């Protein structure tokens, strides 16, 4: 079959910049392409050609970042090519325009987060989309259930296909390929003889790492050898430190348990930190679809403590490969679960081994790809939609409204909002331009910082902050004085 996979407008495939969806697509392509004639359309990136055929897969890359611009490129490509099946990733808002360009293709839609929520897509359009697709694939039961709850009458078949992990790359720290790396990382960061807790994720209110830092005092009374590693890129940022990052840094500084921040770690290197840890903790406070880090932690043979939010707990078998925190708002609930695992070394070991077993048995890319192949088959056998042509036109009009183009996925890409994704949504009317600009600014800033030298920058910023404060104090005093006169 001739199949087109349509990526999102945010990040390129292969995942040179990371990204859960991009990893999902890249992980399964080697297998999928053995069975079908596959084209992947995604966004352009300076490190990737706009057109290439690699390992039998055709890649087409068009400008992206802004959904409207990306949509134009995708639609144009589809108008000039024909496919039996089009598999759209996480962009229900691309479905109707693509249907317009490919009236005879079957459409499968993959959902990686809550893009069917009403602030993301107009309910009228959403209902049409649900009629138009043969089936929907979700990354967790949670994501599928949200869609069912929102649109109980009109949902097509929804199937959860959990994501996967490269179990050859993510390996336990005692694996021959990893032990040296583990030792050297631990040595380099003063983690020898420590029991290392690992957090990996965006440093934001939603991801909740502050709860883990606040659990440390309680843990320190029971365990003398603990350390916490925080793998998230914004810890050391200077120019755009968010209040949240400042807050967690201030908390971390006062801990008797050492808190090691890794700063930015390239997506291709993160397995090294997983291999260097002893226990993985996910602290998410929001309804998270299902974070990839769970698969990575399992593959690395780490026991997992995660939260009962969104789909995260779906891959945890309590007491087998981890424990679930029911009330993640409360730091002591983390302390309690972590204590349960750390105080029983044999349980801890068993959980790690079981996690690795589960990863190899259930979460290899092979399994993911095979399930996608099944879904494709069903899609091809399903009848083509019978939606009226008139409806189609009326549905396409609102798509020019860019208020819904912001995506939940952004959190993986642009972790610049500390409060919630909802804040992002609030910015929706300006976000497209802003995203683009921010990226440019960030790049520019980075270039500038690189030139200047990191340490230099850090020291300066500190002074600057102080200066600013001094100045503010002075100003406040002056104002007060003025007004008293």
């Amino acid at each position: 079959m001739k199949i087109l996979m349509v990526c999102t407008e945010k990040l390129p495939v292969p995942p040179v910049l990371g990204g859960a969806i991009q990893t999902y697509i890249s992980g399964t392509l080697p297998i999928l392409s053995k069975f079908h004639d596959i084209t992947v359309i995604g966004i352009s990136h300076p490190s990737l050609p706009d057109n290439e055929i690699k390992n039998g897969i055709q890649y087409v890359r068009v400008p992206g970042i802004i959904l409207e611009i990306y949509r134009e490129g995708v639609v144009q490509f589809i108008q000039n090519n024909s496919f039996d099946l089009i598999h759209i990733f996480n962009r229900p808002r691309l479905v109707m325009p693509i249907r317009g360009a490919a009236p005879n293709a079957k459409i499968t839609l993959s959902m990686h987060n809550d893009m069917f929520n009403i602030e993301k897509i107009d309910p009228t359009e959403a209902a049409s989309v649900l009629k138009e697709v043969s089936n929907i694939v979700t990354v967790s039961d949670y994501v599928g259930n949200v869609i069912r709850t929102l649109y109980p009458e009109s949902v097509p078949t929804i199937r959860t296909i959990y994501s996967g992990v490269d179990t050859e790359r993510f390996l336990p720290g005692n694996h021959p390929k990893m032990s040296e790396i583990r030792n050297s990382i631990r040595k380099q960061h003063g983690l020898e003889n420590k029991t290392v807790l690992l957090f990996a994720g965006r440093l934001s209110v939603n991801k909740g790492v502050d709860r883990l830092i606040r659990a440390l005092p309680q843990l320190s009374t029971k365990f003398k050898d603990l350390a916490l590693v925080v793998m998230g890129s914004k810890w050391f940022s200077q120019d755009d430190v968010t209040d949240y990052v400042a807050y967690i840094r201030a908390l971390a500084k006062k801990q008797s348990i050492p808190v090691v921040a890794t700063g930015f770690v390239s997506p291709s290197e993160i397995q090294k930190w997983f291999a260097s840890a002893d226990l993985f903790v996910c602290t998410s406070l929001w309804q998270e679809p299902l974070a990839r880090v769970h698969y990575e932690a399992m593959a690395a043979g780490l026991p997992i403590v995660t939260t009962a939010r969104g789909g995260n707990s779906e891959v945890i078998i309590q007491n087998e490969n981890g424990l679930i925190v029911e009330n993640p708002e409360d730091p002591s609930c983390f302390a309690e679960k972590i204590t349960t695992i750390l105080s029983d070394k044999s349980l801890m070991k068993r959980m790690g081994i079981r996690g690795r077993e589960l990863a190899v048995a259930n979460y290899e890319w092979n399994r993911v790809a095979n399930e996608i192949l099944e879904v494709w088959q069903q899609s091809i056998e399903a009848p083509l939609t019978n939606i009226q042509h008139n409806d189609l036109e009326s549905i396409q009009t609102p798509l020019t409204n860019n208020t819904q183009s912001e995506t939940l996925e952004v959190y993986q890409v642009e972790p610049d909002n500390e409060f919630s994704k909802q804040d992002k949504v609030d910015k929706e009317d300006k976000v497209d331009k802003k995203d683009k600009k921010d990226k440019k600014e960030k790049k520019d800033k980075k270039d500038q910082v690189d030139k200047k030298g990191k340490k230099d920058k850090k020291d300066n910023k500190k002074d600057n902050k102080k200066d600013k404060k001094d100045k503010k104090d002075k100003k406040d005093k002056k104002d007060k004085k003025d007004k008293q006169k």
Partner: protein
Amino acid sequence: MENIVIVPWEPDELTHEFFVPEYIIALAAEVLKHYSFQVKSMQVVTTKPDKGGAIWRLETNEGPKSFKLLHRRPTRSMFSLGAQKYLVEVQGARVPAVIQTKAGQEFIEAGGKLWFVAEWIEPLAPVTKDLEGAKQLCYALGEFHQLSKGYIPPSQAEVASRLAKWPKSYEKVITKMDWFRNIAKAYKEMPASQSILNVVDTFQEQARKSLADLKQSSYLSLVEQGNKSWGLVHQDYGWSNGQMGPNGMWIIDLDGVAYDLPIRDLRKLISGTMSDLFNWDVTWIREMIRAYHEASPLTPELYELLMIDFSLPNEFYKNIKEVVYEPETFLNETTTQLIQTIVDTDQSKWPALNEIQHDWRK
């Protein structure tokens, strides 16, 4: 010139207050070539080193001008510049006119920032720091709000709107009270930590009540009226950005304008004035609101929101939020005293708000 990117700079002992890095001065000269007037002299009048912004006063053959390097994202600055142009050209507001370049542009983009030139209004004199002055400010603010209605930003600008964000910003205040508490606990040896711990629960409870009241109010129906019909808030309005000049009160420094319910400016002006007085004075509040109302009539719904916005622990939040950055220096004796002052002033806030609560009955 294309490759230069303006970044924040670091003043030190060797630089004076109005220091601007050489490369920015060079860029400024390039930018000025786009204008038809001849510059006789230029003088830095203010800088924002931590953000990368500056303002110069220019003496030109066409009179004095202000020349600004805007620190915000260019697309954000385009929103504000469009507003300034709208206020002057369409509404005839007393705000400085933007001078066009030879090519008829409102701004020049250089170093990744926007630069623009506006008329330097003179003479400008601050109004008196008494109730009369406060009323003049309020009336001028009302006028400004009225005139800002109907603004539509240019298509390349981002839409800066705080209109729908009130609940989020109230929630943020509540969340950050947790942060203040947790930091005070972690830094309990610092002088101001105990002061924070003594009062943070009370202020957090106030914020929770404000949010609950907001949700009960007509806020959402007001939001539905949309950005354009509400117009703009200045966001940084007070004794320095509203001044007496030719033909009346002038409003300057419009760089931060955004769509919002206009009374947020009024709330800030009044609550800031009350904290300067160390007392919530019913007469002042009533007279200031009335002066505003004369220029921009308040409906009972807006008045209700004004009251709700007063009820937030604005002063405590505004003054303590910096604590996350350098708790070791922030949590000093000065902050202890500051908190005491805020708490003392807060005592008079509630009787005052109770008294005026029903001034605008539905």
